[in-house]
């Protein structure tokens, strides 16, 4: 007979992870509510850079994923692994390193993200020193995991352990490959990948962070805690095995579904779609396996809040994993991508699957760790219902908002123009939904507070059993009777290792097949001759863009749809991004796309817009950025940045490393001079100057090759030749005026206001003219611009027909009454005296005028 060994399960570490789970859950969700408030109430940042949406959003996502779910995952794994292996954790020291290391990383993450130290890659925002710390702690966890498995007293590895192993090795691989970066300083680095390659690596990581951090460990927990709570084995163990292998093998391929209609080559996009749709099968197999475990035990669900939470969690898993593949179908993705639909999708998964599974697990664990009963089953049931309601109040409005945004941004009117050319028209429609989201999120948050109170009361009522005594026969002494296994007992020790290697192979194949061709084959990224690296000042501005988290709301990717090329400009090409370390495509449009923003507005517009977005875009929900105007630009790293990028293959000439400072000063002075002409006094060494330089550069490189649509035939002062192409009278054709209005809303309203009342630019509705009062004068100003005042020359940007249309529309505004008229400038014209209102009324319109 074999000897019975006595040992203790380590419960203290489980308890510690449970406390961390609840604590970080409260923090992460509270930060989420703050971010949700700022979506429609930007002043909720109190004009403090550190509390602004762009920095708060990554804090929210990191906190709920890595702090809340991460600690929940460790709690569940440390509890179930010991019992499934009939062994204490391999090393108490490693357990402690895992726990305190992880909490330290979370604190460091919270501080650095708010300070603006970010790589900008979603769910991998943390800078390189923290990335290294994560790697070390993760290695400690993996050694502890595998060590425990090696010294187990139960010969067979239950399927939950497989999921844990897959989690450990895959997360390590994803984290290391995606975080590769070249450091510039302690808190600044550049991704070694650029543009479309960076995008592919990032979303291979980002997608599988969902798969192997939010899903596989929690599936392991489901396969352990659901049978435990239901008091019956899993419905089909065979199905759980199929679930495991199919899931990990398919999941790793699906990343490119985040990049549909991007500049990623079609073959990679198709792979992403196909494997995403295949994922429905294992996911639903797993969901049904979970739900069917409760067959014959549904009466328990009525009584036991733990099972209630589990049922909703597993159902939410099924919903989210059906929706994900549907979103990966290109035609659905065309509508849903960049909208709130995706936000609703992830919250179905996060609030439903991860949240509710964690809550159920905690309600089950804490009474057992403290050797007592749950303090209040009733309160836990209240938590269940309030959480469920909160979840519905969150996701339903946000799904609605996503569909509304998708449809409105694609709608064309009967004349063939965008129905809603102004982005703000769309945002205004969905703000009520954003408000309802805060109600839902707050309800869910209140539920978590109820749980925290309930669990504290439970812990107070009992005493922690730090070590649970257990006994089991030693494994090696067990005579091997199962003929399926050879008598070579060493195979037992080696099996987990073989298993680990097989898992790694399974997940690595997908990554290799997708990414290696992108790295090594040139034809996958067609280059564009005219695309040049950013100037030092633009690079500094880009780093400010990254620091402020602009990418959280603004995409830089114009998809090849007419609705997008009409709204933003030519669709994006891979070759435009070859110097983008990291890529900044974004994944959500809370504001408009910025890929073609360069040259669209004058510098003065950008200055005013950053100072107070509502002054240039009434109703805008973008926060103010006064600190960009206050702060002096830190240029100390610029030479190092240029050197680092040179090492990554960005073709800066060698002299640029030393001349970077002079180059910056020269470009900054030009922008400051430009602003001064528009009556804006600002020192050239402010951060805003660098940001303007970057924004004005965006998407302009490809224009350099394109021949202007209208040959600049007339370079003489009068512009007589080209001018003869234009009618000398404004049109009153409704179709031309409709087109003119369309162009006005896209191009002119930012300076002249939607109703022509004027803000940066002059009032276009009064009878005062600066550059002449004939229609030919107006055409001339539109064509040639008034560059010294910030008016852009539109010739070459707009076709002659469009210039005539927009000038006609502007002409039609003369004599109308705007909401907030700017005081008149220039001289009063007498041309309109016949149809002008009596002098007295006109004077009243122009109050404050001294003429």
């Amino acid at each position, binding site marked *: 007979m074999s000897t019975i060994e006595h040992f203790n*399960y380590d419960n203290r570490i489980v308890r510690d992870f449970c406390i961390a789970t609840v604590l970080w859950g409260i923090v992460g969700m509270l930060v989420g509510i703050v971010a949700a408030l700022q979506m429609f109430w930007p002043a909720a940042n109190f004009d403090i850079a550190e509390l602004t949406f762009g920095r708060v959003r990554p804090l929210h996502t990191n906190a709920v994923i890595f702090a809340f779910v991460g600690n929940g995952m460790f709690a569940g794994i440390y509890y*179930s692994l010991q*019992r*499934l292996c*009939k062994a204490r954790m391999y090393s108490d020291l490693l357990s402690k390193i895992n726990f305190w290391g992880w909490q330290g990383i979370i604190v460091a993450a919270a501080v650095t993200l708010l300070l603006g130290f970010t790589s900008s890659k979603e769910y991998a925002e943390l800078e390189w020193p923290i990335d290294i710390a994560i790697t070390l702690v993760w290695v400690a966890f993996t050694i502890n995991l595998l060590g425990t498995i090696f010294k187990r*007293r*139960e010969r*067979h590895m*239950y*399927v*939950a352990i497989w999921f844990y192993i897959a989690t450990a090795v895959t997360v390590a691989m994803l984290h290391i490959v995606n975080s590769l970066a070249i450091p510039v300083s302690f808190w600044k680095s550049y991704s070694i990948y650029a543009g479309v390659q960076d995008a592919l690596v990032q979303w291979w990581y980002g997608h599988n962070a969902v798969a192997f951090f939010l899903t596989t460990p929690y599936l392991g927990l489901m*396969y*352990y805690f659901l*049978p*435990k709570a239901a*008091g*019956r*084995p*899993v419905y089909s*163990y*065979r199905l759980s*095995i*199929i679930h495991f*292998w*199919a899931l990990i*093998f*398919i999941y790793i*391929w699906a990343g490119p579904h985040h990049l549909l209609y991007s500049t990623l080559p079609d*073959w990679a996009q198709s*792979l992403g779609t196909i494997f995403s749709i295949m994922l429905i099968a294992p996911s639903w197999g797993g969901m049904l396996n979970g739900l069917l475990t409760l067959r014959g035990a549904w009466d328990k669900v009525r009584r036991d809040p733990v099972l209630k939470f589990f049922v909703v969690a597993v159902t939410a898993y099924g919903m989210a994993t059906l929706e994900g593949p549907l979103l990966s179908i290109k035609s659905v993705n065309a509508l849903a991508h960049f909208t709130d639909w995706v936000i609703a999708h992830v919250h179905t998964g996060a609030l439903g699957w991860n949240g509710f599974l964690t809550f159920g697990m905690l309600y089950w664990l804490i009474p*057992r760790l403290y050797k007592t009963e749950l303090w209040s089953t009733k309160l836990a049931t209240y938590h269940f219902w309030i959480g469920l309601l909160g979840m519905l109040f969150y996701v339903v409005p946000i799904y609605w908002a996503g569909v509304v945004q998708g449809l409105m941004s694609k709608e064309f009117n009967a004349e063939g123009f965008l129905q809603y050319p102004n982005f703000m028209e769309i945002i205004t429609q969905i703000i009520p939904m954003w408000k309802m989201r805060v109600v839902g999120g707050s309800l869910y948050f209140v539920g978590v507070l109820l749980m925290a109170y309930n669990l504290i009361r439970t812990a107070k009522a009992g005493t922690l059993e730090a070590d*649970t*005594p*257990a*006994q*089991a026969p030693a494994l090696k002494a067990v005579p091997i009777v*199962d003929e*399926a296994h050879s008598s070579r007992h060493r195979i037992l020790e080696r099996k987990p290792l073989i298993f680990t290697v097989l898992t790694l192979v*399974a997940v690595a*194949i*997908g990554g290799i*097949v997708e990414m290696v*061709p992108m*790295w*090594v*084959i*040139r*034809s996958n990224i067609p280059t564009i001759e005219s695309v040049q690296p950013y100037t030092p000042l633009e690079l500094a501005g880009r780093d400010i863009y990254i620091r402020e988290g602009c990418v959280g709301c603004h995409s830089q990717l114009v998809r090849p749809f007419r609705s997008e090329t009409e709204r933003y400009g030519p669709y994006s090409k891979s070759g435009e991004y070859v110097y983008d370390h990291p890529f900044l495509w974004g994944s959500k449009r809370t504001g408009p796309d910025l890929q073609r923003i360069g040259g669209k507005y004058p510098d003065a517009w950008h200055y005013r817009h950053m100072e107070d977005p509502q002054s240039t875009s009434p109703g805008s929900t973008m926060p103010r950025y006064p600190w960009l105007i206050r702060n002096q630009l830190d240029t100390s790293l610029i030479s190092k940045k240029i050197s680092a990028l040179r090492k990554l*293959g960005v073709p800066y000439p060698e002299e640029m490393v030393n001349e970077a400072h002079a180059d910056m000063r020269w470009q900054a002075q030009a922008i400051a001079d430009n602003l001064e002409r528009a009556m804006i006094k600002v020192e050239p060494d402010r951060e805003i100057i660098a940001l303007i330089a970057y924004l004005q550069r965006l998407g302009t490189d490809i224009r350099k090759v394109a021949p202007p649509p209208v040959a600049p035939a007339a370079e003489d002062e009068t512009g007589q030749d080209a001018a003869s192409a234009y009618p000398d009278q404004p049109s009153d054709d409704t179709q031309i005026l409709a087109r003119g209005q369309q162009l006005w809303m896209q191009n002119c309203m930012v300076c002249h206001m939607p109703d022509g009342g004027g803000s940066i630019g002059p009032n276009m509705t009064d009878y005062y003219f600066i550059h002449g009062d004939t229609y030919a004068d107006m055409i001339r100003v539109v064509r040639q611009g008034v560059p010294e005042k910030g008016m852009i020359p539109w010739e070459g940007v707009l076709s002659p027909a469009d210039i005539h249309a927009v000038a006609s529309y502007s002409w039609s505004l003369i004599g109308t009454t705007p909401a907030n008229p700017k005081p008149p400038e220039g001289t009063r014209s007498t041309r309109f005296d016949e149809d002008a209102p009596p002098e007295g009324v006109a004077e009243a319109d122009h109050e404050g005028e001294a003429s």
Partner: protein
Amino acid sequence: MIRNALEHIQGIAILPIIGLLLFFAVFTGMLIWAIRMRKPYIDHMGNLPLNDGSETPSDVPPPSKPL
């Protein structure tokens, strides 16, 4: 850099095909393995979470009998 060494890979289409075949082979093998599992082994595995060697008998109902 290695990227400059390769202008094109001939027959890139073979890669997804290899991936598909590999996936198909692994999946089929795993399916056969799962289906051929013996009933006593399945029951033992399914009951592992319910029988963890610790002394909390209230949690652990008697292992369910094979159906």
